[in-house]
């Protein structure tokens, strides 16, 4: 029952982000909606695993989270440079773009 309640909220959020992705006036709106949709999908898979009594779904959720992040970064890189092979170091050598592990040693 509690999983069904969580699932309802997650599904509603998925619908809303999908609407934003379809409406989004700029391409960045769509990418933002895509990224958020991925995060909510991870949650949906995790909740679905509990709802159906099969926690093995969490492995899929973990994998989906990884792929979602990599995919978002790849799309943004393609948008910014038009080429996935560019190192991107020359133009912003001093930014903390790759600081995803901030705080991790």
């Amino acid at each position, binding site marked *: 029952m509690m999983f069904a309640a969580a699932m309802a909220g997650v599904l509603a959020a998925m619908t809303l982000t999908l609407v934003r992705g379809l409406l989004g006036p700029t391409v960045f709106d769509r990418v933002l909606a895509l990224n958020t949709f991925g995060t909510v999908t991870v949650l949906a898979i995790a909740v679905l695993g509990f709802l159906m009594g099969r926690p093995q779904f969490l492995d899929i959720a973990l994998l989906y989270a990884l792929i979602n992040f990599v995919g978002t970064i790849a799309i943004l890189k393609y948008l910014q440079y038009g080429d996935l092979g560019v190192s991107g170091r020359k133009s912003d050598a*001093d*930014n*903390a773009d790759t*600081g*995803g592990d901030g*705080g991790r*040693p």
Partner: protein
Amino acid sequence: MRLVGLYLALFAFWLLMSGHYEPLIVGFGVASCAATVYIARRKDFVDYATLSWYVKPTLPLYWLWLLGQILKSNLDVAKRCVLPGARIDPCIFRAPANQDTGVGVATYANSITLTPGTVSLQTWDHEIRVHALTRHGARDILGGEMDGRICRVEGPSKTGNGGGP
């Protein structure tokens, strides 16, 4: 040496993830970890750099504090999302970042982004450009409490000056 460490870490992670301990399955795990290490060596992915920022015992404490902050600003932003009368008043400003190392500044920028209501737009060595949803959120950042806490986690010792990613 690094390769052995990488192998052991990968294999420990594999065991944790799989939850199966039959000989055949573990054999598959051994083989796949070996293949991963081989590919990492071929592609020069192995990181030989020394760590410049060790785990400080105060870091988990900072994370706990950060979780509290995240929850608080979540409530605020969620209210502004839903309530019909709530107003947003976005603004952009530059906040000073007083950390010594690049890792410190990156942690600060990530913490700002992680807190809903503020997003870091650009970072420089000692300055971060921030987009805030409300003046209230901007005031929280400019008050410098988060900045000071990260500086304290980073430690007063300036000996590790080879730091930075």
